[in-house]
């Protein structure tokens, strides 16, 4: 009988969340470039083993391109347009590790396992359920946002005036967000999410070998990257 298969290379959501928070340190302190590449290889490996081949490759390619950025002194000497463009990329470079790790967390975690993991760590329901709803919210929101973009294009609303563009886009997106979150909450409530008993899990969330390996490797590369 076909069932949802557990993947031995998919770490526990808590481990992935821990890695993302740890990578957050790299926003404040830049890592050594060799350790940065080690982190990229680890992330790409986990992406690849979780059947996210496109993400595995783009992780390496994008980081490779970001590594080619000139340093701040060089950027300062360029003209204003190039400077602005390059500074956006520099900002992306600074936030790259937490973003890539967060992407891995989002793409490889299901709602049930997030709730289970948080239950195991004794997170209150008031924290775990909103985080789970948030996970489900973004894919729906992305779909609707694309429709809004399409409607704007057909209506001839261009982003020449960023202020009015933002005004136009904000109202439908806010209405949609409210509808989506209402619908998701209704779906969850009519499926007994609020039941106070101890929930069972079809795929039990447990600590696997990959959790130890992933956590140790991430601690090693972040610590190593900051020390050296």
């Amino acid at each position, binding site marked *: *009988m*076909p*069932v*949802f*298969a557990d993947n031995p290379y998919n770490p526990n959501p808590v481990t992935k969340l821990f890695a993302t928070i740890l990578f957050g340190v790299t926003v404040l302190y830049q890592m050594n470039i060799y350790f940065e590449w080690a982190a990229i290889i680890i992330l790409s490996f986990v992406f690849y083993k979780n059947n996210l081949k496109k993400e595995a490759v783009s992780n390496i390619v994008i980081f490779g391109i970001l590594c080619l950025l000139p340093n701040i002194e060089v950027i300062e000497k360029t003209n204003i347009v190039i400077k602005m463009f390059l500074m956006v990329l520099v900002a992306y470079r600074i936030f790259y590790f937490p973003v890539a790790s967060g992407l891995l967390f989002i793409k490889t975690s*299901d*709602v*049930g396992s997030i709730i289970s993991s948080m239950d195991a760590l004794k997170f209150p329901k008031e924290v775990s359920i909103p985080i*789970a709803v948030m996970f*489900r919210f973004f*894919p*729906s929101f992305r*779909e*609707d946002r694309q*429709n*809004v973009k*399409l*409607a*704007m*294009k*057909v*209506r*001839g*609303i261009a982003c020449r005036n960023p202020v009015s563009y933002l*005004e*136009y*886009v904000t*109202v*439908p997106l806010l*209405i*949609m967000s409210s*509808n*989506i979150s*209402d*619908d*998701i*909450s*209704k*779906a*969850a*409530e*009519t*499926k*007994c*999410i*609020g*039941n106070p*008993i*101890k*929930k*069972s*899990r*079809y795929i039990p969330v447990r600590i696997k070998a990959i959790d130890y390996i992933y956590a140790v490797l991430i601690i090693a590369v972040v610590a190593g990257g900051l020390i050296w």
Partner: protein
Amino acid sequence: MVDIKNISLSYKTNQEALKDISFNVKRGECILFTGKSGSGKSSIINSVNGLAARYDGAVIDGDIKIADKDIKEMELYEIAMLVSSVFQNPKTHFFNINTTLELLFYLENIGLPKEEMDKRLEDMLELFPIQHLLNRDIFMLSGGEKQILCVAASYIAGTGIIVLDEPSSNLDNDNIQVLNEMLAKVKKKGITILISEHRIFYLMDIVDRIFLIQDGQIKNEYSKEDFLQISQRILNDLGIRDKDKTKLLVSGAREKGDLEIKNLEFKFAATDSKMLLKNLVFEMGKIYGIIGANGLGKSTFIRCMIGVERKSKEEIYLNGKKLSKRDRIKMSSLVMQDVNQQLFADSVIKEVSLGIKDIEEGKVKKVLESLDLYELKDSHPMSLSGGQKQRLAIASVILKNSQLIFFDEPTSGMDYANMIKISEMIKECKRNDKIIFIVSHDTEFLNATVDYFVDMKKVLMLETDYCSGYNKRSDKWLNFIQLNKDYVYLQARFYSVLR
């Protein structure tokens, strides 16, 4: 099983949605609530599953008892252990992204052991052979597949009652047939079904009693036999759609015209399949219905035609002149299924003028007056009712004066009267220098509105991967439908498609 006594329901706006409703339902019965939009059908369903009081801020007077338990004092999860719900739009009513986990989510929340979950999954798969829907990304399913998954999830929950709120609104005829099949099997298992619907033809062999709801009250209660005696005209006047399956009476598109699609190619990123269309022609001054099963690519076709799909390749000519994507965006207008996604300005009058240069004030006034919107010209578009929003979107289309006008499912979930209103409005947009395209599953609406239809299943090039993929999917449905020998005619239809 369900005992409702003298319930009245009002929302925060103080408007009374239900007035003194009383009925009871026996175990295993199938009850249909039908009537015009806004008559209170959904409020009855939402009173039974507890969402009206707990989510929509409704105040309910009277007694609602389910399996002898008064649900007014119960928590939502306690009600959910007695009643499963299927909603109108399956798009957002999922909590998980993986289909199998969604099916198991309820069972996990009631703390069922894994062995019991396996047993329930096996039992469900025996009843509904939907193995091909397991372990998939819900966002990759068609609207029909999502709704089928919703019904399966409500069955696997094991509750004695299933309530459904207009479940066929976004489904094509083949998927409606599958829904009929599933509900018939659920009923045979002794599960009580409460369903609110406009499109009732697919329920006529399942339903036991029909309640006609009008202005928040039960106007009449019919047995199936009595209901079948009522003439279609009377039912239409009451806002109810045809009780027999409507056949498409429009003819296929002719092979001459001013707008020619010589070639249209689009590769679907998610499936690696390809949509390929060649040598299609459309006449100016005509309305075309675009039909085909859920997930066949009708909306993608519209996006390619408008020119907003970056990855598509098209060769489209108007009177011999090749049109670029930019040309087509300029000459196109679109009314989306969810009009909330296309209203941007902070007043009705600004909304209709948005993106249009040098618009005449007199013309704006005339169009708004003709659509009963002029009085609301300073209102915020988001404060309007659903029907008013749709009329506003149509007003923008009329004022943009585009040559190519597209409507995506404009009547989903609409009662008969509103469907006819939309049909009249679209026909009023018809001019000799315009072509109107309507994507719809609504056969009654297409019969009332369009000049010709284009069946996507027939015009898609058969040698493409996309079509072979679609046929493979049809095979799965065939296996499903074959299980029930009562639907032999459906098999014949599918086989003719495969040939």
